[in-house]
């Protein structure tokens, strides 16, 4: 093969590498749920077709997480502050849903095109 063809082959491999990188799942719609620092699960909200609930038990009660197509929120919690319930739905790039007493955090794994952080 000529040098031109070797160069073409080289370029093709580079392009293939780039394509694989770009086509890998971005994680942009995937949220993680942590409790006391431990990742309980990840959910791709774009892949959710039917609403369902998740129970996060802890001493003295539980929090119910409502998962819907494209959104997630804490529906109820057995704590006094109810801050996590009042937070409502998680917004891309918005403040994570946080339950301070039970150390529960729900946040996007990665945000794209939104904001990097929220003050408030």
């Amino acid at each position, binding site marked *: 093969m000529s040098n031109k063809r070797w160069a073409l082959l080289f370029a093709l491999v580079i392009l293939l590498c780039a394509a694989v990188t770009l086509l890998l799942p971005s994680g942009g719609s995937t949220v993680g749920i942590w409790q006391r620092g431990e990742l309980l699960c990840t959910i791709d909200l774009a892949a959710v077709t039917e609403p369902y609930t998740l129970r996060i038990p802890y001493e003295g009660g539980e929090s119910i997480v409502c998962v819907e197509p494209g959104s997630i929120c804490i529906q109820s919690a057995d704590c006094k502050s109810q801050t996590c319930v009042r937070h409502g739905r998680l917004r891309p790039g918005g403040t994570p849903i946080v339950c301070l007493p039970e150390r529960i955090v729900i946040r996007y794994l990665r945000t794209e095109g939104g904001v990097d*952080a929220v*003050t*408030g």
Partner: protein
Amino acid sequence: MKLSKPLISLLAPGILCLALSACGESSESVSFFAMDTCMTVTVTARDADEALALCESRVNELEQRLSVTLEGSELARLNSAGSGTVSDDTARLLSEALALCAETGGCFDISVSPAVAAWGFYTDEYRVPDESELAALRSRIDYRGVHIDGSSVTLGTGQRLDLGGIAKGYASEELRSLLQERGVDSALIVLGGSVEAIGSKPNGESWRIGVQDPNSGGYLGVYRLSDGCMVTSGDYQRSFERDGIRYHHILDPRTAAPAKSDLRSVTVVCDNALRADAYSTALFVMGSRRALDFWRQQGDFELILYTADGRLLLTEGLSEGFSTELPAEVISHEQ
């Protein structure tokens, strides 16, 4: 050994990628709970994981010293004893806090702790103290009763300190120093509602920081932040209702009750998170008119104010970097 051209063509891109990733920096984040909030630190550095571990460890160390609710913390012991010797961290923060109390005319006051406790904000067991109780609480609130001499601290009779309005700002500044000493030039330190940026994003763009809308989960707007910090205080962050009245957590040291402010939120943008933390609380208590007078006098920070009647006020230094879909009034230094 002589490598054939096809083999070189196939291996070279992989080797190139490996070489680039080996010598490049990576962006890593860590989230953890401390100081009654969720914290996230994002660092771009060669040893990002090590830097993040040091950040978490430093915040935990500070919490052990500065927390008012953590049993056995340095501050809890000081509150209990009324006097004592404290660490360099606590002494330094107390000195800076007292200076900020004076600078804000007592609208920020670290001796407000008895009132915070009486309203139930430490335990989430909320209650509304009656007027006689409020009068008794007011007599215990005055930062001028706190005396510090080196590492020795003495509180006035019945006084207790709460550094919650400033400890996250102090922690943010400590993390900034820690990271910069390690040569980090791109990081975002988010300690609850306190956001501090070291440099810009790895791609050179400014960090995009949303300012929460008190009325919804959305944003009042987005500010493009590089090398600076933003801290917000708002009446929506923590509150409870009794008999149809909503009581929020930002107490006016002069009344020992939730501040009757014409503001819903105050966002301070400046180059020091500790100052921004104290200012955001104090300026909320002051209300919009006094807050803007204070801004005009100081002149080295910027403000985003959202009023109870839905007006968005921006000080003139933010007119370039802040984007919003809401009608905003730009406030100039000249009255």
